[in-house]
């Protein structure tokens, strides 16, 4: 803006015709994560958006090149920290693909259960935050209550509410607890009940609907050309879910559907997420019925999985296995692979390169958030400043995954 002194002559006072530049973030209470948007405004109308990520860069990929393959798990926890278990599983599958092993069926089902629980929390966090940012605080609290129930289950299973580090190459850190089935069985109807209440509160609310419908429209073509995946892509009407397209962990055997939208606006994204929660609950219901109460959870290969402690203390093979795995780590064969799974926000890919040693040569993560983030610009142009909050909220950018 020009200084006001130039218009001392009241007769010549005009409204400024130059667009206004506004910086939103990186520290702004309504921004999801530490990110900055440089906006060019024409009054309330957004003419240009420059999204600038990078404020949460920790050098995750580089850090992976120091330790062993197993020591990458804590880093994956901190990618999309709304659904760490999906990242754990995604990385496990990548390394297992490189080594050429497949975990036992019990482990696959366990991974599906924990992963779908994580997906529910991820989608609920996004939906709840959107409601809160539009002024609906009550449904937010209800949703967060549900998230806490699930986190309680994850805590009982893994020992941690958020950063589980529970995945292992060739299995999981521990077998399922005896309580798991009962806990999931009890929580599923409760989730359904709360979501019904949320639906009544929000989806009959004129203000909430007006703020979502027709706002932040992303066309199918734009979404595809930008490489958008996950609920955002499905909201534009593209039927792509990694679990259906290239099933892993036995997803092809579960009966579930992939919800898709048809407008690609914020409302569609919101609804796709809510419906995916329902579908995840369907999968969970089937998975707990299938989960065997006993059987191996880890692959039977002491070169990959730590041997039992009594073997370590009493036999030389066990001692050597323990020594090699702890000191040098699992050694995948030389080579590179790309492995991808359906993360909370879309296709979570790991491109990993091994030089045959126990330390990763390269761990490249394809973070769904980062790629989805590119769509924020095209979606927001033409909308109003106040729409930034719900539209950007529906992108569900998670700084930890976007910047790594």
């Amino acid at each position, binding site marked *: 803006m020009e200084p006001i002194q130039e218009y001392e002559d009241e007769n010549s006072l005009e409204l400024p015709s130059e667009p206004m530049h506004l910086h939103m973030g990186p520290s702004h209470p309504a921004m999801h994560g530490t990110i900055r948007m440089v906006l060019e405004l024409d009054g309330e109308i957004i003419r240009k958006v420059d999204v600038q990520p990078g404020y949460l860069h920790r050098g995750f990929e580089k850090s992976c090149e120091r330790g062993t393959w197993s020591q990458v798990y804590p880093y994956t926890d901190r990618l999309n920290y709304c659904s760490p278990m999906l990242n754990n599983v995604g990385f496990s599958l990548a390394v297992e693909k490189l080594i050429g092993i497949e975990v036992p069926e019990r482990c696959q089902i366990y991974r599906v259960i924990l992963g779908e629980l994580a997906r529910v929390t991820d989608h609920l966090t996004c939906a709840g935050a959107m409601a809160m940012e539009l002024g609906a605080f009550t449904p937010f609290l209800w949703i967060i209550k549900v998230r806490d129930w699930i986190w309680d289950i994850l805590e009982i299973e893994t020992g941690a509410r958020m950063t589980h580090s529970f995945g292992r190459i060739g299995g999981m850190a521990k077998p399922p607890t005896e309580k798991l089935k009962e806990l999931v069985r009890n929580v599923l109807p409760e989730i359904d009940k709360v979501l019904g209440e949320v639906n009544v509160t929000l989806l009959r609310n004129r203000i909430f609907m007006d703020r979502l419908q027709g706002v932040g429209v992303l066309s199918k073509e734009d979404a595809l050309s930008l490489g958008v995946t996950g609920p955002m892509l499905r909201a534009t009407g593209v039927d792509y879910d990694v679990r259906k397209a290239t099933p892993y962990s036995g997803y092809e055997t579960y009966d579930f559907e992939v919800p898709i939208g048809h407008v690609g606006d914020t409302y569609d994204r919101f609804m796709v997420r809510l419906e995916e929660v329902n579908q995840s609950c369907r999968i969970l219901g089937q998975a707990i019925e299938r989960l065997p109460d006993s059987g191996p959870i880890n692959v039977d290969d002491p070169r990959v999985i730590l041997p039992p402690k009594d073997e370590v*203390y009493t*036999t030389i*093979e066990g001692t050597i296995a323990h020594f090699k795995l702890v000191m040098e780590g699992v050694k995948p064969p030389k080579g590179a692979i790309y492995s991808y799974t359906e993360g909370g926000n879309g296709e979570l890919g790991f491109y990993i390169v091994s030089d045959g040693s126990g330390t990763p040569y390269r761990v490249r993560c394809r973070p769904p958030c980062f790629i989805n983030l590119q769509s924020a610009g095209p979606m927001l142009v033409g909308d109003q400043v106040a729409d930034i909050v719900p539209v950007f909220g529906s992108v569900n950018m998670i700084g930890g995954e976007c910047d790594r």
Partner: protein
Amino acid sequence: MPTFKLDGREVPFEPGDTIMKAAWRQGIEIPHYCWHPGLSIAANCRMCLVEIKAERPMLMPTLKWDESKQDYVPSDKPKLTPSCQASAVPGQEVFSQSPEAKNAQAHVQEFLLLNHPVDCPICDQAGECKLQDYWQTSQGTLKRKHTEPVHKPKAVRFGPTIVYDGERCIMCTRCIRVCDEVVGDHVLDMRERGNKNEITVSPGRELNHKYTLMTEHVCPVGALTSRDFRFKARVWFLRSAKSVCTGCSTGCNDHMDFDPRKNQIFRIRPRDNAEVNKFWMCDDGMLTYHRVHENRVTQGIIRNGQAKNVTRAEALGAAAAALGKVSGANLAVVLSAQHSNEDNQALVRFAKEVLGSERFHIALLGGWEGDNILRHTDNNPNCAGALAAAGGKASSMPDLLKDVASGAVQGVLALGWASTEDAATLAPLRALKAMVSLSSNVGALTEVATTVVPVASFAEMEGSFVNAKGMAQRFERVIDAPEGVKPAWQTLADLAKAMGKPLSHAQPTHAPALQGGAVEEARS
């Protein structure tokens, strides 16, 4: 050059090579314990079994598990060949990774671990043990035999340097062969058979020749351990620098293994160099690293009636004052055959430009026995280099004592601690107007010096030595010098400044071109 195919890869070989040796030359490792490139072929460990494609393979009857019948059925399998013993034949196809070969390697490895004690946590070899490596690459299964393992003698003293553990031994006979073939001393042999099989020392003997540590070096497992290194450090904490042995004029190439956290050297290992030491080193050479940590001069010393420790700066000041009192013509400069070319060349330049002296002497270390294996009769690593630095014109220490007695020399600047003459013989130097020593360790020269300035040892700088064959060999810096202590060539630059005659240009930080032959790059 003829070639054969190893796992689909063309491998060139020289006539007479075995499959193992040709692969080794190409950097391909076929699992093995008993084979060593520097020793004869024993072919007793059976780890290197490979499958060789033949038109009419020799088949051996065997039983194979049939999944559908849930029973063993008669079958046959190709006879495998130890690749360390089989000559390479042009055009032949060898498979070290075929299912049969891998199966054999896995089972040989399992056999070797059958009675192995659970010693990794207390074994010095852990971390660089072939049993551990091949478990991971070739076996990868847990124990199937859960009965009490066979027990054998443990911690047997073989001699002043080596301790033997029979339970860890895999009877590869490398130690026996290294004594027989490298040293020519049949002091080790094997006794008994089967479960009682063990390595033993000849009756009435100890393992006490000059190359005993080589038995430990070739041991692929933790059966032989060096008493010097035993329980001192864990190998995964050690880092390695390429260095050259300072024990004698052969200049054996070595790895100096040090712990960067403690800034301390823990052992020396031979570094293969076909032109110098092949694969070996002598015991005395392997233990020279002790000099880097023992009897060090880390502070300046001024002797005025009695010795007083001073700072390096004070020592430099005192040295400058003392040397300034004597005219160049009456000053003798003692080069050191224990110091690098860089140090000696700097000293020659300092003598000519700052002191104006042309009197060069070389101090040599003595008291050493050579042999016709590796040990050169001259136990100084850089006699040739020091002589070359002085332009080939340097006289001995007895000559220096004569000049001192005649009064022609009134001051001495000496590099290094080493000299054949003891402090009593060198006593006349005490009375000189100036007797300055630049030294890393305490020795006869520092004892008679009126001023001692501390300098870095060879392990604390990079540089080069010229060995008896005239090969200049570079060595890397291993650890940091004690605080404030600098290499001699830097110390001389500081001394020149202290004397008010700074050297005309900066000193080189790297080994300059040498007279004693081309600088040979350090090999791996």
